[in-house]
């Protein structure tokens, strides 16, 4: 910690050509940070259910508002992406998936898969009764 000021640092983001592997790494962080905010929402939701009918209904109607729905869709996508790409990183930790072709393919899969999964989640919610 004491030597941090003199430790070498790598060039920052703007110097590199964008690649899908780089984007996936950056989005892993960004979605992680987003889930800091998401954790607040989840906690408020659970606490409101524990507190009272009125508190719960207020939170539910906020979540069901247009802005609330946008936030929830974003939150669910960030969970899907962080989970799928997180599994990808766990494979990396175990020493698999490092070939450039594989890493690129799985990077695209993390983006595509998380978007498709989010769409499926909300399609089911809308069809089966998220209405109330």
């Amino acid at each position, binding site marked *: 910690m004491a030597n941090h000021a003199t430790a070498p640092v790598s060039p920052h983001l703007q110097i590199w050509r964008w690649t899908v592997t780089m984007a996936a790494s950056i989005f892993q962080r960004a979605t*992680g940070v987003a889930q*800091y905010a998401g954790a607040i929402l989840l*906690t408020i939701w659970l606490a409101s259910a*524990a507190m009272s009918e009125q508190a719960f209904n207020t939170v539910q109607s906020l979540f069901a508002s247009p802005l609330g729905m946008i936030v929830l869709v974003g939150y669910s996508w960030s969970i899907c992406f962080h989970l799928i790409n997180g599994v990808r990183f766990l494979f990396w930790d175990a020493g698999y998936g490092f070939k450039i072709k594989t890493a690129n393919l799985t990077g695209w899969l993390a983006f595509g898969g998380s978007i498709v999964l989010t769409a499926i989640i909300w399609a089911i*919610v809308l069809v*089966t009764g*998220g209405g109330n």
Partner: protein
Amino acid sequence: MAGKGTPHFIFQRVTALVMIPLTIWFVASLIAHAGDSRTELMEWIAHWHVAVPLSILLLAGFFHMRLGIEVIIDDYIHKPDTRGMLHFLNTLFSLILGAIAVWSVVAITLIV
């Protein structure tokens, strides 16, 4: 963080592994309970086979979250005082939020 890298790395991965099945289960359950009233939701959470895994998910999640933000603070904040303060706030925030979330699950099981 100096010297604490290995346990940090391991805890980050262990909490991640724990959360994979629990997150899939919880998100799938939330889809099924999307239209629930408060009573229906509470009755569902109050089952031990829901309250226990949900509490584990929350504990692992808040721990994982604290570890993740810790790395980001280390990467981007170079002034030792500021960094120390942010580490403290990160830990405090995760603890408070985690306590409220887990307490809520416990409270729900006691109320129902």
